[in-house]
């Protein structure tokens, strides 16, 4: 199990990198310039990178989005809580890597060659792992006490608090800690052991498990003398009434090998348990980085006096994008005041597609970017840049922006056109019903007539695949497409939208 503040139900084990749409979403983020915005808003490069990964994986469930929105609002209300948790999880995030590094350090000078050397190295590994296990378990208390100091209302933060309480009261965790605490002594010579072995039907030892490790006396001079005496005189404490055969001192190497196997087995099990317990909170540091970016985004809009809202989320079948006072975040981040930015009401409901045209520099690209950003932010659980919004969830959001010429090595129009065709073909291979595709001046790298003809057949195909599109263009395509289910919008010189 893994606890997540980003996902209520989804298994966060799904790594961001495995998404089949990863490269398409990277394009989308790039085309919508969301990467620039996130970089500017985030406190660190790490937080920005994590936030972008979250944005590249839009949620498609209202319940999940609301879970995230509520956590964000708690952090907006209690920024100190976010800071404290970030501090805790900064340490937590390095716990496992530190442990691994120290483990590797045991073998800095190579793998020991003698049974005694191997045993010492194994004990050292076990000791480090025991410490890792103890420290990992101790985090449940730290997190519980920290969150408990705030009146949080989100299911995510209330959940983590009650989860930590349960874990603190868990007797199994106590027992794991208790066993881990046995292995704190400096060297393996500080103990006497009992190792239970299993032999097979050919008298080969096939398993060795540690049954008991009892500390010898402390490291005082008296203790050392007793240990030496135990070594030299064989006057080990009489164990109990169990019959024993004294094997003498002839099996030192074998005994060390058996003990090494027993300690190795314990190391294996304890490592696995500690690693799995560590998993409970693994990744929370990154998740908090996303919320930190979210809180900074909210604060920035508040400072600018810019409107924002948590959108009303609608099922995909409602097929709705309706915003009041939608504006482009980038204009704000580039230094314009909210008063200078023209805000538009955009209503796209129940349309197969939307065509947008207008003269140069009338706001077409800003608007398509604002629409894309609003959808992505909404499906990431963030507020959107509008006074009010009603947004249907989309299965995926694809972009083909002709301005993104970075990948085209050929500078001639034919090469660029071919590059665009490839991009569109790649998008069409990945679309699923209820995807939205944003085209910005696509196929204008060829003659407008040919480009329009090519685009017309593609646009006609998209609704048949259950998808929707918005196409910003200068091409003469408005007259060619007469389907009443296609919305046609035009930008005027005043940056205002008119429906045709």
């Amino acid at each position, binding site marked *: *199990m893994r606890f997540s503040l980003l996902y209520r139900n989804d298994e966060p084990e799904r790594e961001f990198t495995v998404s089949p749409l990863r490269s398409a979403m990277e394009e989308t983020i790039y085309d919508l310039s969301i990467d620039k915005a996130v970089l500017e808003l985030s406190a660190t490069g790490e937080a920005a990178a994590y936030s972008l990964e979250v944005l590249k994986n839009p949620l498609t469930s209202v319940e999940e989005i609301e879970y995230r929105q509520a956590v964000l609002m708690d952090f907006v209300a209690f920024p100190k809580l976010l800071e404290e948790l970030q501090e805790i999880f900064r340490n937590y995030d390095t716990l496992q890597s530190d442990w691994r590094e120290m483990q590797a350090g045991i073998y800095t000078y190579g793998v020991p060659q003698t049974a005694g050397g191997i045993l010492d190295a194994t004990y050292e590994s076990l000791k480090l792992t025991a410490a890792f296990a103890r420290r990992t378990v101790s985090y449940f208390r730290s997190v519980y006490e920290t969150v408990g100091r705030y009146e949080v209302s989100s299911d995510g933060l209330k959940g983590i608090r009650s989860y930590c309480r349960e874990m603190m009261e868990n007797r199994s965790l106590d027992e794991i800690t208790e066993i881990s605490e046995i292995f704190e002594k400096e060297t393996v010579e500080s103990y006497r052991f009992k190792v239970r072995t299993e032999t097979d039907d050919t*008298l080969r030892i096939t398993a060795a*498990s540690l049954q008991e490790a009892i500390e010898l006396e402390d490291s005082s001079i008296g203790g050392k003398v007793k240990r030496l005496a135990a070594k030299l005189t064989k006057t*080990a404490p009489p164990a109990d009434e169990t019959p024993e055969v004294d*094997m003498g001192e002839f099996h030192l190497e074998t*005994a060390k*090998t058996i003990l090494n196997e027993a300690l190795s087995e314990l190391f294996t099990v304890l490592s696995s348990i500690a690693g*799995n317990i560590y998993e409970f909170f693994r990744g929370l540091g990154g998740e908090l980085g996303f919320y930190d970016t979210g809180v900074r985004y909210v604060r920035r809009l508040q400072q600018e006096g810019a409107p924002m809202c948590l959108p009303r989320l609608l099922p995909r079948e409602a097929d709705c994008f309706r915003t009041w006072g939608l504006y482009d975040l980038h204009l704000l981040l580039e230094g314009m005041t909210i008063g200078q930015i023209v805000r538009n009401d955009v209503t796209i409901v129940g349309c197969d597609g939307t065509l947008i045209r207008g003269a140069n520099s009338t706001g077409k690209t800003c608007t398509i970017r604002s629409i894309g950003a609003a959808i992505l932010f909404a499906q990431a659980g963030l507020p959107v840049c509008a006074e009010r919004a009603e947004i249907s969830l989309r299965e995926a959001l694809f972009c083909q922006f002709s301005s993104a010429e970075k990948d085209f090595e050929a500078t001639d129009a034919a090469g660029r056109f071919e590059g665009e*065709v490839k991009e569109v073909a790649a998008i069409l291979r990945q679309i699923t019903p209820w995807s939205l595709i944003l085209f910005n001046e696509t196929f204008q790298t060829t003659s407008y007539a040919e480009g329009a003809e090519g685009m017309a057949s593609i646009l006609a*195909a998209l609704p048949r695949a259950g998808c929707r599109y918005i196409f910003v263009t200068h091409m003469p395509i408005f007259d060619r497409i007469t389907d009443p289910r296609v919305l046609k919008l035009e930008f005027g010189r005043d940056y205002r939208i008119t429906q045709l």
Partner: protein
Amino acid sequence: MSYPSLLFSDRPSGQRISPQVFEDVKLTAFFSEESVDAMRVLSLPADIPIRQELLRFLSGNDSARSTLSELSGIAAEIQRLWGALQEVKCENERHYVYVGLLAAVGDFAHLAASLPDAGGALLRRFGAYFRSLSCDEAWSALSREAAELRERAREAQHETFRMSGDNLWMRPDYRETYTDRLLRCAGELELPPINPKRELNLRLDPRMVNALARLHPDSFLAFRDFYSRNGNSFDESILSYRFELEYYLEALRLMARITAAGLPLTWPQLTKERCIDIRGLYDISLLLKDGVTIVPNDALFTEQEPFFFLTGANGGGKTTFLRALGNAVLLTLAGCPVCAESAVVFPVSNVFTHFPQDERFETEGRYADEQRRVGEILAAHGGSSLILLNETYSTTNEELAVSSTLALTEKLKDSGSFTLYITHQHGLEEAKVPFLSVIVDQDDENRRTYRIARKKEAESSFAADILRLYGLDGESLLRRFPGKEADR
């Protein structure tokens, strides 16, 4: 006492096929080393239909098949225990291991006796032997005693070592370990399963074995007594069941796999006439690849035409055809059904392959290596074998290659052995042997059909075809990127 074989009514033919042959035709992808060892020892032709009968019976009888599978597992145990017995270092160890070995033999015999009195001569003889053994009072008593002692031996398989300083004690102490406790905790926390098992195989030295005997004196005395009375009761011939049973089980698994793939299997008919006539032949190694269309072909070798060259375009299915032929004959000789619609096969006395080898030739050149291997085949084929030559002499200059091929053809074509020789060489017409060739459809951009047919002479190979095969020609690239998704 000697256990009855499941492979031979009486004795093997005396011929052994090289394991490299199985490797070359890729049967090793379907049969383990143990099975190949069983298959390469050829039977007399009369045993082939008897094996077929047994496989037929097993393929339709789940219960008998399951019993054979269990027997195979026990046979593996017997083999392992026998190996351990060869390595014992003290008498207590010998007695201990021997008890387990005899108990395993008892398990095997008991289970074998439960087989039905059916399945052909080999299986009936096998079952009857063990049924009669189980009726033998002395054997039953021995078997029972071994089983009882094995239980006592198991009690001595968990010991505890107490270690303090450099001193060591051994004691019977079975309390819970830290690992047990941690695994319990992990289970209660619903953590993912943990496998604490390590690869440990540490032999108890004689002192330790003797210490163990001191902790369990009564048991070890009983083991010693058992050994002193029955030390000669183990018959090593039981070890061959390990290979024999494994062969049948793997053959059954292969048959099931082929049937599940919807491909035909046929029981070959043996003939005394020198001919190999297989219709609808296909290569099972294509089963290992996904999405491959299997194209069947016919193979006809007769006394009059026992030798063929096979030529044609790269990637056209020449090696596939050669492997298919090799597989079919090897499976026939082993008593298995073959991958074809029908098959009439002369039971050849051996099978030889000559494939290109990639290893480094440190003591001789590549051509010399080829010649040496050809020489070995010529010395051994005996005029009644199947010889599969795959691009032999392809590593030397054309003149030498052609002359070597012609010389080899001269020696083989009237020898009585059947030969299929894949080659790209030109100028072999004077050998006066028939040619087979892969068919390409010239009306369809030289598309490969994977069909094999008779040709009068060798055709040149089409290196350019390879490019089309991988879709790298202009038209294919255009087809791959037509933008037709837009019309969906």
